């Protein structure tokens, strides 16, 4: 099997400031993170979830995205960021049992090239506005990725949110 489950984090009562995977083995090729989450903030219907690598908050991330909200489509690009914004996800002001779904694919995390990320997300809700987001990100650092952090733009990740980290190996028979 070329795809292996490294671990799953389920957020406990009270929420969590972040979901982190640490000590990722550098023996594989790619990382694949499956995310099912919502925000515990109660102000709006949606909140942004962010991705950071190696706990690095320097401004060496860039990303571009295409997003549809049920009424229109938009495209935006960002540079010199301290994280990659993956998508808007549901928060407590929306339906309380609705979680957003998505994944992030990090290619060549264990080699000495800059890291590119592809991500797709959906955040459906009992409302006319919901988001579908496709994002591509760049982390301009050649270090091996040993940890991944997920966190909200504001507030915590809500209870019962989950994230699973898989590794993928490009070597046949690995």
């Amino acid at each position, binding site marked *: *099997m*070329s*795809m292996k*489950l490294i671990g799953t984090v389920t957020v406990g009562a009270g929420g969590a400031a972040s979901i982190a995977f640490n000590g990722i083995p550098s023996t594989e*090729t*790619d990382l*694949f993170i499956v995310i099912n989450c919502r925000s515990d903030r109660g102000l709006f219907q949606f909140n942004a979830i962010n991705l950071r690598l190696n706990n690095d908050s320097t401004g060496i991330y*860039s*990303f*571009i*995205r*295409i997003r549809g909200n049920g009424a229109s*489509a*938009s*495209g935006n*690009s960002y*540079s010199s960021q301290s994280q990659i914004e993956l998508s808007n996800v549901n928060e407590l002001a929306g339906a309380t049992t609705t979680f957003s779904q998505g*994944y992030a*694919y990090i*290619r*060549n995390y264990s080699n000495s*090239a*800059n*890291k*590119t*990320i*592809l991500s*797709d997300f959906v955040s459906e809700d009992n409302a006319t506005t919901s988001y579908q987001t*496709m*994002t*591509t*990100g*760049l*982390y301009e650092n050649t270090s091996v990725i040993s940890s991944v952090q997920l966190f909200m733009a504001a507030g915590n990740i809500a209870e019962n949110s989950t994230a699973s980290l*898989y590794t*993928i*190996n*490009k*070597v*046949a*028979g*690995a």
Partner: protein
Amino acid sequence: MPTPTYIAIATTTLASATYSASFSGITQAYRDLVLVVSGKCDVNAATLQMILNNNTGYNYYTVVFDQGPSSYQDEGNYMRIGTAGWWTNQQATMIATLNDYSTTDRTKQVLVRYGSGATKMGFTLGHYNQSAAISTVTVRTDYNGAGYLMAAGTTLTLYGIAG
């Protein structure tokens, strides 16, 4: 989208700047294929193309949805992968899923996500109007000349997904 059945079939790392790279003799043991290309254009910018079974006939149709956001259609002797010039000298990734590649009773659909993270990204739906099973997949740039090639170090990996 990857699933836990990802099985690596073959991988290639380009030793030098290259116009075209192929996987041939692909096993028919799976239902779908996933091709992941990671790397960059050697100097300038290019667009990647896909050729199936070495067929360069007028059999390929593509719809692109890119960062504009804009959408357009293309057709011809190859499958266009993405926005013009998206394959830049900046590290980029492309993931293509070839659905039902081993079947012989239907034409083939290819879903592609691509992006450089810095300038261009998008989604492509490709159609190959032949029903023969796919045994060879070729990726190339849109111009065979220095400065517009896949750079040395670019990796291409083919995975199988069981049906």
